[in-house]
């Protein structure tokens, strides 16, 4: 890693030199170490994004074989379409409130697991993580099974018990709840790694200087986790803003229009209006770039280092009599985000008839049949795609983490010239709705003169590109928490920069790196829209197989069974990174 040898661009200001002052000598341009990295990231991300940009402003869709540069601005007219405004507004409302909810849940769980003596911390950590095992469309479906006003299991249960109350998940509140719950793990993972790097002295100082626990949290703990909070807010918001499945399953039946459904309709119109979808994507990219820039600005002015060379005494805050009540709060989240949805799925998978008037129906003979699980487990298709999925997810998450670390390191630790560009480029995929980006990736890997298309490798590459923002944010927040001096010191003591990074920075950031890996792993397992453009019959992956099952409509029982097994696979898969990330700072 030679990128550390930072750039110096300014000419020497005044000091007179013996040589004629005007003659500028050639200097070895520094910071070139970051150039290969920029090339890699740029190639992975900018080429597909470039296609999207071209699509936004060209007359025809620029797919391979018919790429031309007849440019036009007419696609911008899409913004005047009726309904866009309302859909945008709805999306904003949902986005903002669900993001807040996700941050609240994630922040709460991150704090109690990283910094307090809550009972069964390992288990609470798992609670924070688990909704990641459930793809959001499965979660949304499960919640529609639970909370639809007429046939929702919750409502049936309450009718059985004679309670006169109806849950309606097809409402703004329902959409916000489900989105918030299922995106909370992002916030959780990012904040957890950042908070486990907290130096308790800084918190203690607040207590000593008269800050109550709450004030301490408000003015020290959370502000110090600001890079993680802002980072996850950005991630969560854009995801929610672009999330199609939840909107489709919960918002549309409630007659709530959102931007993603709007884009989906553009793509689904006949003939497909890909150019216009691309225009919307470009606008989103601009917004996200602005937000990223703003975030950079806010963070640049201050420092968030909590791990310093003056020691780090891991100390947990004692919750006192709040231990169990707070644990109960975590359990409620577990119940709503995982237990109920999974129970609904299991029930759906074992019930011979999806129709139910009362829970008493279940006691009827033949009402329950566990066969669907066996059938799923025996099917070749399922086994093949599970194998592919695991392989693709592990490889792309591992490579993605490494790449994100390199980028994060270059951006936050070096003075390389390409820093800003690197960060900006890495955040681009966040802005482009997956459905549009998927097209860009398809075109890219079709025209590339390398025989990757149609292999698992192309899926891996695509995942790495698509998940770059998540990876970068995950790494960035923990890099910002560790003091540079620690690494510099290793260099002084004779380690090469790379060695210093490996033996000092990486171990210090262990929790953050493991969380990032975990997040990418789960995301790769879940990723649906992008592989839909890239998979072939040889490279079936699990998310697509399940999506097909759900798309079939009738096969709900199978689909539910498969989803439950899918969650189990994700759970098992999450074990390794969880192991890596557990444990404190001390050796």
């Amino acid at each position, binding site marked *: 890693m030679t990128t550390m040898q930072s750039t110096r661009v300014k000419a020497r200001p005044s000091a007179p030199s013996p040589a004629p002052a005007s003659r500028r000598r050639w200097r070895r341009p520094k910071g070139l170490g970051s150039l290969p990295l920029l090339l890699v990231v740029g190639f992975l991300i900018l080429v597909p994004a470039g296609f999207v940009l071209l699509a936004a402003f060209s007359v025809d*869709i620029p*797919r*391979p*074989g018919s790429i031309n540069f007849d440019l036009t601005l007419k696609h911008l007219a899409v913004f005047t379409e*009726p*309904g866009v405004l309302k*859909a945008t507004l709805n999306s904003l409302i949902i986005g903002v409130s669900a993001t807040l909810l996700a941050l609240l849940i994630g922040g709460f769980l991150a704090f109690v697991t990283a910094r307090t003596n809550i009972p069964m911390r390992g288990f609470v950590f798992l609670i924070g993580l688990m909704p990641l095992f459930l793809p959001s469309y499965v979660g949304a*479906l499960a919640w*529609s099974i639970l909370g*639809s*006003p*007429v*046939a929702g299991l919750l409502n049936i249960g309450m009718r059985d018990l004679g309670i006169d109350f109806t849950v309606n998940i097809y409402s703004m509140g329902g959409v916000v709840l489900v989105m918030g719950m299922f995106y909370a793990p992002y916030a959780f993972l990012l904040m957890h790694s950042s908070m486990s790097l907290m130096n308790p002295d800084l918190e203690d100082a607040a207590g000593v200087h008269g800050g109550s626990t709450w004030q301490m949290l408000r003015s020290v703990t959370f502000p110090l986790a600001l890079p993680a909070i802002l980072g996850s807010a950005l991630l969560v918001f854009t995801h929610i803003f672009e999330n199609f499945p939840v909107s*489709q399953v919960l918002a*549309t*039946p409630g*007659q709530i*229009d959102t931007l993603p*459904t*709007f884009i989906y*309709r553009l*793509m*689904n119109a*006949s*003939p*497909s209006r*890909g150019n216009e979808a691309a225009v919307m994507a470009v606008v989103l990219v601009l917004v996200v770039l602005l937000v990223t820039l703003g975030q950079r600005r806010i963070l640049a002015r201050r420092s968030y280092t909590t791990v310093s060379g003056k020691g780090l005494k891991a100390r947990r805050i004692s919750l006192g009599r709040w231990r169990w009540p707070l644990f109960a709060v975590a359990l409620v989240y577990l119940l709503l985000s995982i237990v109920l949805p999974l129970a609904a799925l299991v029930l759906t998978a074992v019930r*011979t*008839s*999806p*129709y*139910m*008037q009362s829970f008493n129906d279940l006691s009827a003979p033949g009402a329950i049949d566990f066969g669907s699980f066996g*059938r799923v487990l025996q*099917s*070749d*298709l399922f086994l093949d795609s599970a194998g592919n999925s695991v392989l693709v997810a592990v490889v792309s998450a591992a490579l993605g983490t490494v790449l994100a670390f390199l980028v994060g390191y270059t951006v936050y630790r070096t003075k390389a010239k390409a820093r800003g560009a690197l960060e900006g480029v890495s955040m681009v995929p966040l802005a482009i709705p997956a459905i549009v980006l998927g*097209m860009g990736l*398809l*075109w890219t890997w*079709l*025209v590339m003169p390398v025989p990757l*298309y*149609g292999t698992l490798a192309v899926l891996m590459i695509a995942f790495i590109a698509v998940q770059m923002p998540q990876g970068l944010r995950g790494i960035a927040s923990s890099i910002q928490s560790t003091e540079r001096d620690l690494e510099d010191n290793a260099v002084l003591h004779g380690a090469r920069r790379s060695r210093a990074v490996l033996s000092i920075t990486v171990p210090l950031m262990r929790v953050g790196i493991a969380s990032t890996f975990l997040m990418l792993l789960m995301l790769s397992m879940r990723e649906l829209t992008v592989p*839909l*453009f890239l*998979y*072939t*019959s*040889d490279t079936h992956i699990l998310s697509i197989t399940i999506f*097909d*099952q*759900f*798309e*079939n*409509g*009738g*096969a*709900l029982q*199978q689909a539910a069974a498969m989803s439950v097994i899918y969650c189990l696979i994700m759970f098992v898969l999450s074990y390794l990174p969880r192991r890596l990330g557990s444990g404190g700072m001390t050796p």
Partner: protein
Amino acid sequence: GGGSGESPASDAARNEVLPMPAKIDTSNGLVIDGERIADKQLFEAAKKDKVVLYSGSGKESEDLTIARFKAETGIDIELTRMPTNKLSERVLSEHGANQLGAGVVRVTDPLVAEEFAKRGVYVNYQPPSIGELAKGDNVVFNDGQYLTAYYSAYAFGYNSAAVQGKDVPKKWADLLDPKWKGKLGVVHAGAGGTVTALAAFQLDAFGEDYVKALGAQQPRIFDTTSVQLEALARGEITVATLGFNSTYGAEVAGAPVKLVVPEDGISGSFNLMGLTPAGEKSPAAKLFINWTMSKAGQKFAAAQGFVPARPGLEPTPTGEYQLPPADSEQFHLFTPEDAKERSASTVQTWNQAFHFTG
């Protein structure tokens, strides 16, 4: 690949959906129930080959078809399935990059098929049954550049656990009964070719007032058929306008849904396929098209809940239901011309009637 081995699909394909043909003769080429599917040369070559199929059709029905094809011909199919619009993007891109691997591409939108033809994704190919096929309207396009494999039927259905006896709706007009208010489900007309076709049919057959009245029933509006079908099965809605084939699949799988074949008409839409340049070199792909358009293939499609495209076949029931033949009065087809000319206005009218923005 597809569900090879002893998957549930292959069981169903062998027996439950439709008994296997009485006679499959492979002594000299492939002859099923007396109809020649392939000559000796093609059949021998095809046995060493496999079909690469891209399809925008429902996954379950394709799985059944694949299993049946394998059972009847012994040839494997490798399926890549995704919704038609995504498939179209994928196919055009792969084709543009000379990387289109599929031998046969099947889509549900005539405009997409037209585009494929225009771009050379489809090449001319005439199956042995071309003579028969040409007798029907809207079956053979551009002299065989692509064909209608069969038609999808769109009608309505109900939750059989919630609705029984004389409550069961029989005609389209029955959907306007006030007792369904708030319990009806529809997929919005802009969501795809099939639903636009349905709206056009309703407008043509019963007029704009009917559509408005339907909108006034405050139905729950869905984005996709699949989500709606689940809602129906669970009884969240009790009556819904539905695609016939997928609903029938759900019914067979045990969902408490029943279909209605209303006498006053059902809406039909296309399921088209064609051979690609890669398929030209693939004997199996050609054999697949031959088989699909053969009596055996068409009957199997009918048994699954499609309307056969090949004219002049004796009717095959779909379980307890009998769909009308393609050329009957009862069957209203939304032709490619209709799609081009009327889609936008139909969707707009529909949106107004249902107070739907988007």
